[in-house]
């Protein structure tokens, strides 16, 4: 008879392994099926290794500003192989950390590729053999992968996805990044800072198109200042591969074409859910544009089968997947007071230079809702700590409902803002109004003071500009 579990999680990424831990904490017999590495894309090929890479490029950037800080050095150089090696080491350390967590919580890790095989059963294939397992509850957390188009096909050599871009064998002198979302811009930033001639193509009318318009505009200005070339409202018609280069044909909205020859191309035009070979159709689970359709409780409509994370759609963020994993675990266990995910409380962070972080509605979105809003802004140049750090480019922006004082959205660009956004996120979760933010004492001197000032600014009470 097949081994049976209270919960089987398919996929050991951040959504899956967190869900499994929470299930185990709640006393359920839990298994995780993973076909590759525990930790999923996030730990192995996404969030974490890119942060390691970007740390290297940040240090490189600072090394070129040594004189500003009263220092000097000669013969600066970097070794891309060693930068990549460090990034892989960081990923490896964390992946084995997840393994340890599974062991600690007595979660069975099943190696192989899983598929729904019947009511409450899955089959796991590994090296040609198949083993059946029974699960009272099954959580699909198989994640997503890079989206490609017929004219934009990665080859792992000249045309890269994020995965190839993370482990370059040699440093490209010139690079074309297709797509200016978080993934595209982070790689563009990394390669540009290390000296590559980077061009970013974005089909929409601005970079970082999900961010507030003012953030996009400020980012575009900074990127351009850094020497990044931005092609906005532009499509890539075709890619022609040479021996060690690619020639791209770009076409603007108004029909102008441009040819561009680069060493490498990164395709970052969104992602598609990993819905294949899971037995979803046979189980009667609905799929819409490569994502599993679920309700607010991540239920697929098939009793006992849930889906979470990138597999079910935007925002494609690890912390969103983790949160859904916890919701599902607690729903299965019958924990009281569980709430569905509110995407307006999911912060987003982009680790380009300067960093971008936001939560909630953009100013334009808030206006669209028809409510009266008030907006506050505060620039890095007005903050003592920012000046001391030598990081004066950036600003913090708040959007409040003028009537209720609800913080509808917060948008930040500049150094370390990805570490700051949680303050506003906590505020939103606690339903603080501008009055509570204003009454909060922020430590001096910190960058966080700008968060206070941006709230005060919304009421015309800003202190330092």
């Amino acid at each position: 008879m097949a081994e049976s579990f209270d919960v089987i999680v398919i996929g050991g990424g951040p959504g899956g392994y967190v869900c499994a831990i929470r299930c185990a904490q709640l006393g359920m017999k839990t298994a995780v099926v993973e076909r590759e590495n525990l930790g999923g894309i996030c730990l192995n090929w996404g969030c974490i290794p890119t942060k390691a890479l970007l740390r290297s490029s940040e240090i490189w950037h600072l090394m070129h500003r040594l004189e500003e800080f009263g220092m000097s050095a000669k013969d600066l150089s970097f070794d891309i192989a060693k930068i990549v090696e460090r990034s892989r080491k960081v990923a490896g350390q964390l992946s084995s950390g997840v393994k340890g967590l599974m062991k600690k919580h007595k979660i069975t890790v099943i190696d192989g590729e899983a598929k729904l095989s019947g009511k409450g059963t899955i089959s796991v294939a590994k090296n040609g053999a198949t083993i059946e397992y029974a699960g009272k509850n099954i959580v699909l957390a198989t994640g997503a992968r890079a989206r490609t188009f017929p004219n934009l096909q990665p080859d792992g050599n000249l045309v890269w996805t994020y995965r190839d871009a993370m482990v370059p064998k040699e440093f490209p002198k010139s690079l074309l990044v297709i797509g200016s979302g978080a993934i595209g811009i982070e790689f563009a930033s990394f390669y540009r800072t290390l000296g590559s001639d980077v061009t970013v193509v974005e089909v929409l009318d601005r970079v970082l198109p999900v961010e507030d318009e003012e953030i996009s505009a400020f980012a575009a200005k900074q990127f351009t200042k850094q020497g990044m070339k931005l092609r906005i409202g532009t499509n890539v018609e075709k890619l022609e591969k040479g021996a060690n280069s690619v020639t791209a044909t770009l076409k603007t909205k108004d029909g102008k074409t441009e040819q561009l020859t680069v060493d490498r191309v990164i395709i970052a035009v969104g992602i598609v859910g990993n819905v294949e070979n899971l037995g979803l159709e046979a189980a009667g689970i609905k799929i819409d544009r490569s994502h599993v359709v679920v309700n607010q409780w991540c239920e697929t409509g098939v009793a006992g089968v849930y889906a979470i994370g990138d597999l079910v759609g935007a925002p494609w963020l690890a912390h969103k997947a983790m949160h859904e994993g916890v919701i599902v675990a607690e729903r299965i266990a019958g924990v009281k007071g569980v709430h569905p995910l509110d995407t307006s409380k999911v912060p987003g962070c982009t680790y380009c230079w300067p960093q971008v972080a936001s939560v909630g509605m953009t100013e334009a979105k808030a206006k669209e809702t028809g409510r009266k809003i008030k907006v506050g802004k505060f620039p890095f140049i007005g903050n003592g700590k920012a000046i001391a750090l030598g990081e004066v480019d950036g600003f913090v922006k708040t959007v409040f409902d003028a009537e209720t004082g609800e913080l509808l959205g917060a948008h930040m660009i500049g150094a370390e803002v990805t570490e700051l956004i949680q303050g506003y996120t906590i505020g939103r979760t606690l339903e603080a109004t501008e009055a509570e933010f204003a009454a909060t004492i922020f430590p001096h001197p910190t960058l966080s003071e700008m968060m206070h000032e941006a709230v005060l600014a919304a009421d015309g009470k800003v202190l330092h500009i």
Partner: protein
Amino acid sequence: MSTQILMPALSPTMEEGKLAKWHVKEGDAVKSGQILAEIETDKATMEFEAIDEGRIGKILVPEGAEGVKVNAPIAILLEEGETAGAAPSSNTSTNAPPTKPAEINAAMQQLRDAIGVTPEAPAPAPPPAAPKAAPAAAPAPHATTNGSGGRLFASPLAKRIAQQSGVDIANVNGSGPRGRIVKADIEAAARGGPMKAAAPAAAKSAAPAPGAQPNASGMGVTPLPDARLFYKQGEYEEVPNDSMRKAIARRLTSAKTLIPHYYLTIDCDMNALMDARAKLNARSPKGPGSYKLSVNDFLLKAAGMALVRNPDVNASWTETAILRHAHADIGVAVAIEGGLITPIVFRAEEKGLIEISNEVRSLAERAKTKKLKPQEYEGGSLSISNLGMFGIKNFTAVINPPQSAIMAVGVGEDRAVVRDGKIVVANVMTVTLSCDHRVIDGATGARFLQTFKDFVEEPASMLL
């Protein structure tokens, strides 16, 4: 049969108190209203009265005991002829039959729950069998306690939206961590969602289910079904209720349901007032300092003078006392886009006509641009609503709490009246006063209206 006397909640936030002094001893006969004990809270010492007659069978909590929890039995009251042995032991307290005030309170709570309205200044519902509990002298503008006196947790945003939409937060169920009330709960309550029920039956009747049963208390209040049920979709346009519309709906439903209104109508001869007005307006300088007095300005002045002469009318109701106001603060109903608001001319009795006129104009302008401060429209004891400019002859208005009267003013028009046995033409205006009977009895209201009429018919007498 015997009843338990329970530790009263003397304020909405009181959880426990000190039994400072017993005024009775075991075996004493007590009458309703007699002071039984003094209870000390962190804020004040209050006297605690008996509601029922009987004899003190047993004192359960000795004098000087501190930290006595609200609702804990403190003594046993026996009916005449009963012996102490018949008194129930303290652990049966929850089975004690509710006394009359408690029943009334529970019924009121059910009524409020059923119709989804809340009183303007919520008095804490006394627990069953608790003697009449005095609410705090000044209830907090937004409740932070629940009915039983415990602290109530709500997010800052929830509190603010509750205040703006007129939802009594004390009646809302919290869905956040540990029952914390969050924005979504207030929004659901504002939409008429489920409110905290005083009794299980009330929750049932609060749901707008077709054929809802009258609740157990026999109040028989059935909520009105959603109007959408009666119309074809597409045959109407939905205009969402903004916060002002919701506030008007809740306040006026509360006012009309919870305040016992009655109405007095009187005709005023306007000839003298119209003459005086014409003469005074003719004296207005050109340019700076110019004025144009309206009929309403005279009515405000007359009402202010009449209120001072009739202090019983210049008053507001609370559960423990009637508040007699020192000055005549008079609200003026102003129609604004999407609703109405009633800014207040404070100390109308002291002000001259020009001052009143300028003030009303300024208030009305700022009301229309929504620039009024809360202190400019909160309070007052009487409002004037004038629909004469629309040719309305007579109407009745809904009292604007915490005020206790509202004057509905119709058009001043030439009418045929009988004077000295002859039919003559006179400029006549009909005024209808809505009164809160809890504060103003019929004769009291009538005397006020007569004083008002005298001032209007002989404006010069306001100078006396």
